[in-house]
């Protein structure tokens, strides 16, 4: 049995009076790619924001390498080796492509990823490195967002809807690059609307519904019927 790198227990999250997550339990094993699926508003993004430290939670609700991180700030979480590729890319418009990448490496963790490695993975970024990040196409911006997260040399990387709003051909390019990213022993959590895609790249899958886990299993064995039931809550 591999050790869990991330352990979430009884996680609750709120936006003011609105409760988004209800006692959610989840584990990510060392080196695995975990997929999280679910309808809009199921709590997927809230879950990732909580893990990354953008929402504060009880310290022990989220444990990373057996350390409580639930109450830490995002910069403290990042320093421990967690990186988030946010939904909608969210590059810094005032920074050039290369500056966006450099700022990702600010955390200063040692590891295999560097500017030259990112340019090797996405050669187009090398050509465009002095351009404003906003001048790139959506797919190229997504590459910058992924590269920016990799620059911190994370042990666990969280992808939030990486294919949202991108052309199918670009989505294929991004997913083709994925093995080169997580192959080096990095663990990954992928939030994805496209269930087929999510199952294809992951070893295990969680389905969320209304802030709770409605299904958990190995990606290769869960049935379509189980998924639609867990996804839509139809009995």
């Amino acid at each position, binding site marked *: 049995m591999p050790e869990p790198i991330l352990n979430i227990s009884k996680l609750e999250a709120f936006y003011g009076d609105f409760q988004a997550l209800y006692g959610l339990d989840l584990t990510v094993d060392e080196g695995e790619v975990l997929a999280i699926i679910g309808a809009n508003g199921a709590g997927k993004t809230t879950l990732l924001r909580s893990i990354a430290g953008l929402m504060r939670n009880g310290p022990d609700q989220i444990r990373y390498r057996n350390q409580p991180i639930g109450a830490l700030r995002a*910069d403290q979480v990042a320093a421990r080796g967690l*990186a988030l590729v*946010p939904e909608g890319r969210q590059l810094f418009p005032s*920074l050039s492509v290369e*500056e966006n990448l450099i*700022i990702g490496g600010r955390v200063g963790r040692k590891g295999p990823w560097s500017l030259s490695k990112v340019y090797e993975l996405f050669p187009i970024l090398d050509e465009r490195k002095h351009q404003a*990040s906003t001048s790139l196409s959506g797919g190229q911006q997504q590459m910058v967002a992924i590269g920016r997260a990799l620059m911190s040399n994370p042990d666990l990387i969280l992808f939030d809807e990486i294919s949202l709003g991108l052309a199918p051909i670009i989505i294929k390019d991004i997913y083709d690059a994925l093995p080169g990213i997580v192959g080096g022993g990095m663990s990954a959590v992928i939030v994805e609307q496209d269930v087929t895609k999510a199952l294809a790249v992951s070893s295990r899958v969680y389905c969320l519904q209304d802030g709770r886990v409605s299904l958990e299993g190995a990606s290769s064995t869960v049935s379509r019927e189980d998924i639609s039931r867990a996804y839509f809550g139809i009995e």
Partner: protein
Amino acid sequence: MEWINAILQGTLLGGLYALFAAGLSLIFGVMRLVNIAHGDLIVLAAYLGLTTTVMLGLHPLVALIVVVPAMAGIGYVLQRAVLNQTLGDDILPPLLVTFGLSVIIQNALLEGYSADPQKLDAGALETASIALGPLAVGVLPLLTFAIAVAVVAGLQWTFYRTALGRAFRAVSDNQDIAQLMGLNKRHVFGQAMALALAVTAVAGLLLGIRTSFDPSIGGGRLIFGFEAVIIGGLGNLWGTLAGGIILGVAQTLGAAINPGWQLLAGHLAFLIVLAVRPNGLFPRISG
């Protein structure tokens, strides 16, 4: 010749106004904070300069070595202890708190130094001048202008060529995502305020050498700084320098027509720019 002289003197005066404005512009650019106490912080810097020159017997310009780090330290602590608490989605709390701060600083200075006008003694520098053809140009205004250009160039370089500037721009763009990159925004804001008040220290000392000051004049310096920022265009430091010059020239031209029109002419120039180009003359080109 009188007009050319007025334009020249106004341009040099604009350097001082740009120094008033640069810190204001920096703070607004990084954290969207409108610092109502900015003028009073300039006056505070002038008083710190007074204490330093009197106690240590230093020349006011040498006192910069003490006052600049002191103001930077005050800025960092002020930001971390007070102003960070006011920042959020609502723009009202920072306005109210810095307004309160303005009142507190004014009264503390009144208590500590009395209402008597003070002046920094810079000796021969105050009256030295060089002949430029038929015109005589004061060394102090010339030096002030040169310092203003150097400060704006330095800030510009810091903003676009250093890791600190990258952090400023990133936090200004998106606070949450910057935090994900390992930048603690509270610390970055503290650094921005420290840098802004370091500039304020320079402005305060040059103000104190140029004219006499008392605890009540902060508000006026705030207005000049504001006008320079708005004329130049928000978020553009070279624009702020240009804004300061336009304000300075308008004031000296007004004074050349009628000595009572100095301030009025400056405000009129500001109003005209605001009416014709509401975003200022050189707004930041957004990417």
